[in-house]
């Protein structure tokens, strides 16, 4: 044991066996944070990077300048998508446990991050998700069957079996391909947005990554290019407190919020309660309008909590208290929106139960349908010789030869 060392090592607030402790999360009161005009100068709204935009208060009322004043319908739809995301995740997690798919990653506890953004943006806006944004797909109306087929690598897998589960993409739905390499999508989204500006189009880009991934070079490249060219892009940092086993302090979050990185680059930056559907919606709308009107990029930090394991390969009880989520001060995004609707008089426990049942049935039915397109063990299967395609647009001679070789071996 070195005792003379003076190296600072960040420590999470609690380890297995400790009492969860979230005193470090700075939280503003609902309604307390000002809402600047979308064309405000970055210098005049730096506080947004340190405060926390919240709309829903502890009594589930919506208040303050960020209150988006949505119609009941525009609250029922997201509630359904939030539930769909969670129930979809639960189902797929179970299927992985049963060996039906090889791998899975849930978004438990942070569903609002994706669902609110998807509904706040235009369908023509291009989304560059991380691997924990399945809510974007679902809230943009994607058929769950498509996502399941990808996870099954079956005959309808959009990736033709080439990618691990959850590495979805949706060209028609304007959702870019999830990369296994962290953070790469961030500056790509900026490039897409630059192209949109060059072409004089209205569509903007939005990208997501985890707080742990902000340490990668791509985060810096995204911010630099976004500010230099004032690209119409929204850069979302999902701070769910954990990056596999390391807490957000190992990405530099011990001293400052992640939103706080933005103003130094001259980028408008907002820290928001990621479990408050209305707040995320409102902030995303604001940023989208800012970008679309030509006032430049926005960095959004969504403060949330990764309630589940990192992935099906992970066991978080090794590195954090089992019951940390229960102590999480920003609660459960679904429960909060539901209670808000109930308080509004627009929802009941009964309707909720019915919705849960309906969505569960949808997920179960989708799974059954997906299986008809094949599974890991039963056909229809993908044509394995397609593995030689799409390396290039046209298959070159050496890959034709390799395909022949494979064919020859299979015929023996």
């Amino acid at each position, binding site marked *: 044991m070195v005792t003379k060392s003076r190296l600072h090592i960040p420590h999470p607030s609690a380890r297995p066996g400790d009492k969860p402790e979230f005193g470090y999360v700075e939280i503003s009161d609902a309604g307390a944070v000002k809402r600047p005009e979308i064309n405000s100068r970055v210098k005049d709204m730096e506080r947004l990077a340190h405060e926390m935009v919240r709309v829903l208060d502890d009594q589930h009322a919506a208040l303050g300048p960020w209150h988006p004043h949505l119609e009941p319908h525009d609250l029922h739809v997201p509630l359904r998508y939030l539930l769909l995301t969670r129930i979809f995740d639960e189902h797929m997690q179970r299927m992985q446990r049963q060996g039906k798919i*090889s791998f899975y990653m849930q978004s438990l506890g942070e569903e609002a991050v994706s669902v609110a953004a998807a509904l706040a943006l235009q369908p023509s806006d291009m989304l560059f998700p991380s691997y924990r944004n399945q809510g974007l797909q679902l809230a943009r109306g994607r058929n769950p069957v498509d996502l399941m087929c990808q996870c099954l690598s079956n005959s309808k897998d959009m990736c033709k079996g080439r990618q*691990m589960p959850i590495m979805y993409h949706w060209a028609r739905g304007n959702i870019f391909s999830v990369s296994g390499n962290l953070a790469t999508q961030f500056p790509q989204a900026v490039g897409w947005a630059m192209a949109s500006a060059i072409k004089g189009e209205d569509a903007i880009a939005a990208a997501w990554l985890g707080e742990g991934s902000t340490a990668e070079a791509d985060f810096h490249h995204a911010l630099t290019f976004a500010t230099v060219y004032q690209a119409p892009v929204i850069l979302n940092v999902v701070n769910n407190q954990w990056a596999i086993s390391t807490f957000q302090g190992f990405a530099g979050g011990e001293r400052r919020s992640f939103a706080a990185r933005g103003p130094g680059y001259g980028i408008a930056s907002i820290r928001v309660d990621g479990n408050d559907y209305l707040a995320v919606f409102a902030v995303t709308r604001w940023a989208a309008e800012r970008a679309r009107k030509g006032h430049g990029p926005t960095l959004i930090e969504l403060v949330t909590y990764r309630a589940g394991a990192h992935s099906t390969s992970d066991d978080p009880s*090794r*590195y954090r208290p089992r019951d940390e989520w229960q102590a999480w001060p920003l609660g459960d995004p679904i429960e909060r929106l539901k209670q808000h609707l109930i308080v509004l008089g627009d929802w009941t426990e009964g309707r909720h139960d019915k919705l849960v049942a309906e969505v569960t049935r949808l997920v179960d039915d989708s799974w059954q349908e997906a299986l008809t397109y094949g599974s890991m063990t039963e056909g229809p299967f993908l044509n394995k010789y397609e593995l030689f395609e799409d390396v290039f647009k046209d298959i070159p001679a050496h890959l034709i030869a390799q395909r022949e070789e*494979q064919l020859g071996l299979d015929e023996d």
Partner: protein
Amino acid sequence: MPRMNMIQALNSAMDVMLGRDNDVVVIGEDVGYFGGVFRCTEGLQRKYGEHRVIDAPIAEGGIIASVIGMGVHGLRPVAEIQFADYIYPGYDQIVSELARLRYRTAGDFFAPVTIRAPCGGGIRGGQTHSQSPEGIFTHVCGLKVVMPSNPYDAKGLLISAIEEDDPVVFFEPKRIYNGPFDGDPDKPATAWSAHPKGEVPDDYYTVPLGRAEVVREGEDVTIVCYGTMVHVAQATAKINAIDAEIIDVRTMVPLDVHTLKQSVEKTGRCVIIHEATRFSGFGAELAATLQEECFYHLETPIIRVCGWDTPYPHAFEWEYFPGQKRLAAALEQALSA
């Protein structure tokens, strides 16, 4: 003698070196409190303190750069890159800085850094958890490049790498972390405990860098391989009753040309097998050198058996993987004329 799997052997190598040399530090994503996603550093932080077994930000470029600085300041860092597939953000610091520091300063500065990176497929990892990028490091002068095929070598080579004053990129075929794998995914997994190279001393020992090992003597054809493919080669030769001489390269740079040459001159036939894609892979260097060195002894062309020139596809990893069938066909061809 204790029995260890490859994870335990690697852990033991770091344990031994952390214990022997106060300048050794271990750094990487999730390597500290958690013990690494493959558990290679389990228990080391508890034993040596969080200033010597250090959790890092998720920035492979930053990790490599910082260990260069540490190395220049007299430490002997061992950096873990969580998957070899994620080494590319650190590539500039490795190629432009780490590999060339000694040269550009005429020996006045150097950084004795070891970079560990689990590589290879066969664990349903898809294209971003299966790569074998050794070929893009063997082309960079100033780096030593190593890939062990068993626990005994893994520990001995890793200790050598850590003690080495030159930078070493140390690839660990993760498919054989827990047991040897002969290329047949349908066979039940076997454990290292039954394998002679699963016997690993607890204490310090080294396996020198730069020496290949003849793992099977034979007369008819030479199989040049490393990592997981050593086991595929052994099984293929056995099952097909081929009297192959099998050579485990172990260190790609510097390459033990002598041992390879001797064998190919004896057998007159040579098949090279690796998991990385074929085009411009390390097998090309092996073939190019051996045809140059042994031309007049060769009866048939040197054949390469490699991963196809595609990314590693998740659902078709056993089609991509250069397994027994492909090797057997190549051996047949090599022995045909």
